[in-house]
């Protein structure tokens, strides 16, 4: 292999040069840049010289801890309870803000808490917005990757038939992919509108007025779900085409043989189609995972990360910090963390789907 690449292969290298050059310049070099910047205090605009700060940015980003809150007690030592019998706790900020007794929690904020007996366990982090972004991003990937991949496969199976006008359906399913994601996001903002959006109107009409309109993007409980649904719809056509190309590489003789053997439809799918789609499946899964981790445009256009950080994502935070808040080092740190996460997942996926 090595000899093939090195001996008398000047033309080959020459052909590869534009691609390699561009990848190096716009992907490899910027990555090393980001890694270096994450170890400094680089600002976007500043007359101050850049200083090396070591791992401070990572410490700032990743510090997380659990705080055990004892309920407040009255003079006799009994727990003070409110009208519903819930114990009363001191405010977390009284411990984490400039309290010399708890230096380890200084500057941290509450992410979430749970009860254990009368003690409240509070997860506190220096940068809760980062942790919320991480949670949202992972949730997005976990929902979008299987649902979008599965839906795309169903669509591909449906349109992989010789019917009159099937190309019209292919074109229709593919159309959202061709439209700019910004335009799609703007349109869906109108669809999700809380007052008289299309979705509320349709649901209202279908349920004969039973359905109470809701503010899909303005409610922390439904915002991320709404963006997931819209994102799945938008890119499903792209993956459908990839599945379709995979389906069409499967030899028709295999189907004929299966029919002669008397295989049912499910058996044909399970033992002919699915094994034939193995490599396509790996590709689709990896591509969707990568794209889902890079979620940005929909957030930027539709919610700006709100309400209450319920839709903020890692890439959105990287951009918001680097450009919005002029903190290039902070943005780079998030990028490096994201890179490590995606790398780990890709390697795991590769290991799990390797040729045995």
């Amino acid at each position, binding site marked *: 292999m090595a000899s093939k690449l090195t001996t008398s292969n000047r033309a080959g290298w020459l052909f590869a040069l534009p691609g390699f050059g561009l990848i190096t310049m716009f992907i490899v070099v910027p990555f090393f840049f980001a890694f270096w910047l994450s170890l400094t205090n680089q600002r976007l605009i500043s007359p101050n010289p850049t200083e090396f700060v070591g791992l401070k940015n990572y410490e700032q980003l990743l510090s997380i801890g659990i705080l055990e809150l004892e309920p407040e007690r009255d003079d006799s030592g009994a727990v003070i309870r409110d009208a519903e019998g819930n114990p009363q706790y001191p405010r977390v900020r009284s411990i984490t803000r400039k309290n010399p007794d708890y230096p380890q929690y200084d500057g941290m904020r509450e992410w979430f808490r749970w009860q254990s007996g009368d003690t409240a366990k509070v997860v506190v982090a220096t940068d809760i917005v980062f942790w919320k972004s991480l949670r949202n991003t992972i949730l997005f990937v976990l929902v979008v990757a299987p649902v979008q991949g599965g839906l795309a496969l169903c669509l591909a199976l449906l349109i992989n038939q010789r019917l009159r006008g099937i190309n019209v359906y292919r074109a229709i399913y593919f159309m959202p992919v061709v439209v700019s994601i910004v335009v799609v996001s703007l349109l869906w903002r109108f669809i999700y509108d809380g*007052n008289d959006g299309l979705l509320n109107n349709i649901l209202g009409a279908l349920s004969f007025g039973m359905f109470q309109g809701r503010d899909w*993007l303005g409610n922390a409980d439904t915002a991320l779900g709404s963006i997931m649904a819209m994102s799945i719809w938008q890119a499903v056509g792209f993956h459908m085409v990839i599945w379709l190309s995979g389906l069409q590489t499967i030899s028709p003789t295999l189907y004929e043989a299966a029919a002669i053997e008397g295989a049912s439809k499910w058996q044909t799918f399970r033992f002919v189609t699915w094994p034939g789609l193995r490599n396509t499946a790996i590709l689709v899964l990896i591509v969707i995972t990568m794209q889902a981790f890079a979620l940005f445009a929909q957030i930027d256009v539709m919610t*700006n990360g*709100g*309400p*209450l950080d319920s839709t903020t994502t890692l890439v959105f935070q990287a951009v*918001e910090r680097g450009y919005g808040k002029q903190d290039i080092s902070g943005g780079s740190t998030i990028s490096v963390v994201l890179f490590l996460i995606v790398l780990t997942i890709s390697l795991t996926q590769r290991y799990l789907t390797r040729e045995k």
Partner: protein
Amino acid sequence: MKLKTTLGAALLASTGLVGMAHAQTELTMWYHGGGNEVESNILNTIIEDFNAAQSDWSVVVESFPQESYNDSVVASALAGNLPCILDVDGPVMPNWAWAGYMQPLPISEAALAGHLDSTIGRWDGQVYAVGLWEAAVALYSRQSTLDALGLRTPTLEDPWTGDEFMAALDAAKASGDFDYPLDLGMAWTGEWYPYAFSPFLQSFGGDIVDRSTYQSAEGVLNGDAALAFGEWWQSLFADGYAPGTSQDPADRDTGFIDGKYAFAWNGNWAGVATLDGGVDDVVFLPAPDFGNGSVIGAGSWQFGASGTCANPEGVAAFVEHALQDKYLAAFSDGIGLIPSTPEAAAMTKNYNRGGALEVFFGLSEGQALVRPVTPGYVVAAKVFEKALADIANGADVADTLDAAVDEIEADIEANSGYGH
């Protein structure tokens, strides 16, 4: 022979052209109003007049869409590619001046006499940029609404108190005639939040940063006054007085005209559209006074010299030329902005005595408070915007304001105090 003469003539003509171009030094200029034809035409008239009026400088303009203007400037500054004349948004100016993207403007104080103070961008004791206009915000309503609800018309001298304002909202809510009593413009994300809403905080007695040192926000953005402001702000949304962060942008633009809202907190730039939209009895009321005076934001787009410009005196000459009352009036008539001198105001359609928008000139003169004059404002504004959005969406007021203070202070520290 003939060919030789032609060539010779051509040579002469071309050297002549070059000679003429050499006589005037070219000054490049960037402008934020790309896509707005009226605005571009007025600016081009000013530039043509200036280029024709003197022989030293020749200004060449390039326009950018406003949304991407600041990004373009920062990107080209990093690449060392700035134009000579830079158009800058008032509150951003200290940031660019501090970073060295701008240099002091050698303009004579005489040229600035009589201009609204908030149109002159000063940083570190020097003038860096000067604006041709100002913008102001007022509480839009209809006279018929005020009459129907039995409300007193507040004036500059005697604005509504916070209680009167809430009583007015309650009355509008009780009437049942409106979707919401008040439209704050929550759909306009970005600079609108600190520009339009930090004056409420200031009227309560708080601020975004402590303006005495610009090194801290503790006690200012999270003190008792700020907490009171935060509780009030949250109640506007929790109690259904105003639409929240997910407001439809279209409702923001036309909701008041369509009668969906009794009151709207909006800028003078929307005044003409409101009148054209058929709201004949629109009234522009001053901001309510929550205890520390009735306050509105100030500072709009201004012109200055970039840090790499070799001819700041040329920039100053252009700005002095552009500051003539006739141009201020032309901009005002064209795009509805408030001219920066009373003389120019008298020449305009809308801001002269008895003009439809005259009241805005008074608001700018009487209540305007510029946003914190510090390079750190750019980041503090972002933090403030997020805090207000979170509080509107129901986040704990004290925790959110504390977190905002921490973030602003961390940023100031990371920038070694921003040179104050």
